């Protein structure tokens, strides 16, 4: 059997010129920011087709980020599940410890080409903040990271890392003091300093062109994974599994496989204390379409249209919206979305740590949990590819607290 090493996606999963994926996406921002999005759109689509720009990006991904990241066959995890073979895409091995750096390297390069001297970013778990502070340091740009007060407490190590890298971490005390509020505050900064500032959004949400741009910068994950599976195992995975907060690591993995009709895609949302409790962050599983942070997408709101507070043990999934392309993948049936609870994720965290010697991020642990469930129901000749989007060093404190251990 021969398998094409590259296959292009059908046009229907590309947005129109205003960033619409079906009824989702678009540009829902205040008038002051319209020009900034136009400018960004123009720059991005210009440089994306520029050989020199892309060569520099590829070089950065190879020599700075450490790509390609390996595909790892998790034999003991496979044995535990007792079904399909489980493979891990090791984004946890990237510089700074997660997939987030793929995107920030790309956006920082773009900021440089656009002549922007100042970088701002929002962060939940702190991984995107660290990845933004990292590229800002490397390119000699000033950097301000907005982070909810609640997240600052649960991700103290990442806060200190950002400070070491020279970034200013500004605590956000409005609303629920988590990722969504950090996004609001970053937008307020951007609208005020739009001339010299580049806003590095960390996920596939926001107004056009962010969802498509962040996806493209992360799609290196899926391109590599597809090639690696074909070259090393002579097969395409039967199922792709990735966690979804805003959804950047999931789209990065999924997108290059969209044209492979036999490859199932499963996005894993944070079911928190359980979907029935209302205390979760599963906007695709339990939300409905609305407008938040620049795009039309699935979100969690009350009957008056107020955005609801979410809950997840992992700060990086604790977001009431999701990227608009995921909304479209859900509605078209091309991808399925499920929820994994805090407890299930914690269980998977320990299993991967003890069985494979890999300490996963709590976000990625959600994908591992779902990967185990799926593999158990599949045949041994089938394969599950889980995106191990980040490493768990940052979560050690949280895990200890949850288990009543003081470090």
């Amino acid at each position, binding site marked *: 059997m021969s398998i094409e090493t590259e296959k292009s996606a059908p046009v229907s999963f590309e947005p129109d010129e*205003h960033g619409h994926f079906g009824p989702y996406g*678009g*540009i*829902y*921002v*205040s*008038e*002051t*920011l*319209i*020009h*900034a999005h136009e400018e960004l759109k123009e720059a991005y689509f210009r440089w994306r087709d520029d050989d020199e720009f892309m060569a520099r990006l590829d070089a950065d991904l190879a020599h700075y980020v450490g790509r390609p990241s390996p595909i790892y066959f998790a034999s003991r995890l496979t044995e535990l599940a007792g079904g399909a073979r489980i493979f891990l895409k090791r984004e946890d091995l990237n510089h700074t410890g997660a997939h987030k750096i793929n995107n920030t390297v790309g956006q920082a390069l773009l900021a440089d080409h656009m002549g922007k001297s100042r970088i701002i970013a929002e962060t939940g778990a702190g991984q995107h903040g660290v990845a933004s502070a990292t590229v800002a340091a490397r390119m000699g740009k000033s950097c301000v990271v907005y982070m909810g007060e609640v997240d600052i407490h649960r991700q103290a190590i990442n806060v200190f890392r950002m400070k070491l890298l020279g970034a200013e971490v500004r605590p956000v005390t*409005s*609303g629920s003091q988590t990722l*969504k*509020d950090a*996004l*609001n505050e970053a*937008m*307020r900064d951007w*609208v*005020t*300093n*739009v*001339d010299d500032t580049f806003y590095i959004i960390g996920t596939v949400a926001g107004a056009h062109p962010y969802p498509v741009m962040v996806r493209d910068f992360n799609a290196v994950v899926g391109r590599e994974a597809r090639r690696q599976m074909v070259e090393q195992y002579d097969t395409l995975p039967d199922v792709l599994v990735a966690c979804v907060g805003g959804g950047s690591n999931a789209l990065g993995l999924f997108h290059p496989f969209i044209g492979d009709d036999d490859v199932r895609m499963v996005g894993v949302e944070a079911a928190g204390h359980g979907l029935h409790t209302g205390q979760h962050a599963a906007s695709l599983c339990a939300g409905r*379409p*609305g*407008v*938040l*942070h*620049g795009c039309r997408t699935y*979100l969690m*709101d009350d*009957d*008056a*249209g*107020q*955005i609801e507070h979410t809950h997840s043990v992992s700060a990086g999934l604790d977001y009431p919206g999701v990227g608009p392309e995921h909304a479209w993948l859900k509605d078209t049936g091309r991808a399925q979305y499920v929820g994994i609870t805090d407890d299930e994720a914690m269980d998977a965290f320990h299993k991967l740590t003890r069985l494979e010697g890999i300490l996963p991020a709590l976000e990625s642990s959600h994908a591992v949990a779902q990967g185990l469930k799926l593999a158990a129901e599949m045949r041994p000749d089938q394969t599950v590819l889980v995106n191990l989007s980040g490493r768990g060093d940052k979560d050690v404190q949280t895990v200890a607290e949850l288990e009543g251990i003081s470090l």
Partner: protein
Amino acid sequence: MSNRIDERFNALAGAGRTALIPFVTAGYPDPAWTPSIMHALARAGADVLELGVPFSDPAADGPVIQAASERAISRGVSTRLVLDMVREFRTQDQQTPVVLMGYLNPIERYGHAEFARDAEDAGVDGILMVDCPPEEMGHLRSHLDEHGIYPICLVAPTTTAQRMERIASQARGYIYYVSFKGITGANRLEETSLEEPVRELRSHTDLPLAVGFGIKGPESAAAVAGLADGVVIGSALIEQLSDSPSCDEACQRALRFLAPIREAMDNSRL
């Protein structure tokens, strides 16, 4: 279909006056007080009332309006309740135009058709959705048109001339010019920087131009009144209302705050 906004601006143009457009967050400081505060604003010489529909994630607003919105939401204020406030106001005031200002998601949840119908019924004259540029308004716009409710459009310092043209062709009632790059309530207004964009904007439209963001009191209001057809005051007014012990006191404070602004604006046009 005639709209109170047109009627009011026509009358003002005839009298050579500039519109005073106060903004208050509906339900702040207390949901029961809003209709009375609206009457007080009208008595103080307001020509158009902008009523903020509170939203949990007001990304274009500064700390004052954020806090007012959070407080209103915590007191149960919803779009439905805001429409009730307008309805109550209308029982005694049929003339003063009311514009609802806010963000899109609460209206998405309400339903475009239902919202347009109920807003007309309550006596709303226009809506300004901060996060909904004209390009994304299509479906909602057709329902608003059907019910005679004006979509009020924003123009910002970053808006290109080409885009001004497009916005002007879709705008109704008046155009709201955002005086600087920033969030509501920031202290960045430079009246002299308004002259050129206002001139440019006037070359694209005959609609009245209101200027908002950063206008704090009589002096800045008077300076803007010399250039524009309307002056919007939001955060500075809301700050006056905070911690009001009673509805009467809130109304008194609104009057005391707006009266000298009204006077300064009128004098500037003499």
